[in-house]
């Protein structure tokens, strides 16, 4: 459940970032800034999507009774991926704000 919740939070953070850029009118086809920000967001979006699939997979294993004490390898791997996704999301959000800044 924790993994599914973490994947959801990752998705919400990505959607908020996307919304922020869309609201200020940056378009990917108009400038290299728009293009690279869109590329960063798309790459992060891929990780959000895979995290969501992994979260659903974890829930399906839970529902099927495939979760056993002392056999956590699957969940550790999913956790690693989501933790990395959060770190990459922070990088993708911070970089375009540091350069050029407000």
């Amino acid at each position: 459940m924790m993994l599914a919740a973490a994947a959801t939070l990752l998705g919400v953070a990505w959607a908020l970032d996307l919304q922020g850029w869309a609201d200020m009118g940056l378009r990917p086809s108009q400038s290299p800034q728009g293009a690279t920000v869109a590329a960063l967001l798309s790459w992060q979006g891929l990780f959000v999507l895979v995290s969501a699939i992994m979260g659903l997979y974890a829930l399906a294993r839970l529902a099927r009774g495939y979760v056993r004490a002392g056999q956590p390898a699957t969940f550790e791997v999913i956790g690693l991926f989501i933790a990395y996704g959060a770190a990459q999301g922070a990088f993708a959000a911070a970089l375009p704000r540091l350069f050029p800044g407000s």
Partner: protein
Amino acid sequence: MYPPLTGATYSPGINADFWLLGIGFIEISAIAGAIEIIVGVLRTRAPGMTLDKLPIFAWAMLIFAAMIIIAFPSVILATLLLELERALGWPFFDSVKGGDPLLWQHLFWFFGHPEVYIIFLPAAGAMSTIIPAIARTPLVGYRLVVLAMLATGFISFGVWAHHMFTVGMPTMSVNVFSAASMAVSVPAGVQVFAWIATLAAGRMRFNTPGLFAVGGLVIFVAGGLSGVMVAMVPFDWQAHDTYFIVAHLHYVLIGGMVFPLFAAIYYWTPLVSRRPLSERLGRWIFWLMFAGMHLTFLPMHLTGLMGMPRRVYTYLPDWGWQTTNQMSTAGAFLFGLAVLLWILDMARNFRPFGERNAGNVYDGPGLEWLPNDLYSVRSIPVVKSLYPLWDQPDLARDVDAGRYFLPDNPTGGRETIVTSTMNAEPQFLLRMPKPSGWHVWAAIFTAGFFLLLTIQAYAASALCGVLAVYTLVQWCWLLDKPMDQPAVDIGGGIMAPSYASGTGSHGWWAMVITLIVGGMVALLMGFSYVFLWSSRPDLWVPPPGGLASPDPRAAGGRRLAGLGGRQGPRPRWAA
């Protein structure tokens, strides 16, 4: 594939899209293979095979795979960005809209130059395996050769801009990349001297693998010498984009990869087909190939020095390039004849009838020459030296008698032993995947996803993508079931767990390496962002909720703009 020539304006149609998506697809599959190799070499060695007993070829493959993990994300990103520019008009490389075509060159060559060593290192590993076998003596300087391969891999990531000496980089950048390019010849030289010393220390057999190994050594040294020439900036300015470079790269790649590959094919084919290739034909093939190679590429140095530009095959008759080009053409036909003979010999060797009883034809010392049937050896041996079949005379007999690990089949499925990374001590029993159709469907739908993108059939491509994910999840579901046997007998009454988690599990290692690939793509995307910003800061607008307002012309911005050619001397052709 340099923009702007590959942009939608100058390369309309789908040809460039096929190339771009094809490269992206094949690099992803190479990365998947590299992850398998790294985890396999580090975690599933034979018990007792500590890192200082790891076969040199396995070392080469380990370094090669690590280089793929670092370098290939760069070309995946480059092709992805160019495809986005072509398909959707996102301006990464289009200078009219504020992009910069030099970004392509940085991304491409950050992959492209390590790729030369990614091609070379497995061949070097094969040479370091075959030369001791044909000289019947251990490799001289095993540890030095391993260190040299590690150094080659490391330095190769610091030389990419030597392909860009003429774009007008700052003098300091040019000097650094020039020095690094010359430095990479040191570890290559260490390997070459180790091979020569091994040949001198042993009793050389001039069979076909031996001829190809020695021939490759000679050609590679010649290519390395012209490599040092083009690492010098003033010479490179003269030779850049001429046939001299074509001659140089063919000497390096034919000596450093093609000849070692043929040596490896002749050395290891008896392992696969249980028949040796023809020695008589093999000698003909070697000499035709050796002569053809020199006849093709030696005169090409002169063609280039006389000024003929590369990628151009036509010229006016009075320019004086005819004789050397005709020699090259004749040499190419000789080389082609050698390849044709080799194809005939391979077809003869792999014919589905006749006797198949060849064993260890060249008296190789490695574990691959242990007797095995359809799947693997009868039991997994304990390794006590670098050359187990030479140093443990009874090993083959004892392995076949099941006197080592896993003589039986405790789980009833496919299985192997996972050993510790450094000391190769048995840790747990790994259950291998069972036969299934899901991964085949996953591969088909993944291919469909990429191929349909090339013809802009987006709906069908998306459907294939969804089906690829579905089949992959199904495959995972089959493989990933709870274990009911806590511990099993792996031989001689030794009990080992049949499950591991955390840093002990295969999956953990594979995921960490996968995430390094993701991290490299993100880092290079960050580099692309800062590079484009530093090239044209006037086009950038403040972001939502910005954190700071640095002057792009200070510090990092200035340096990256320098890499982009804003500060260096203008090349003479632009003057």
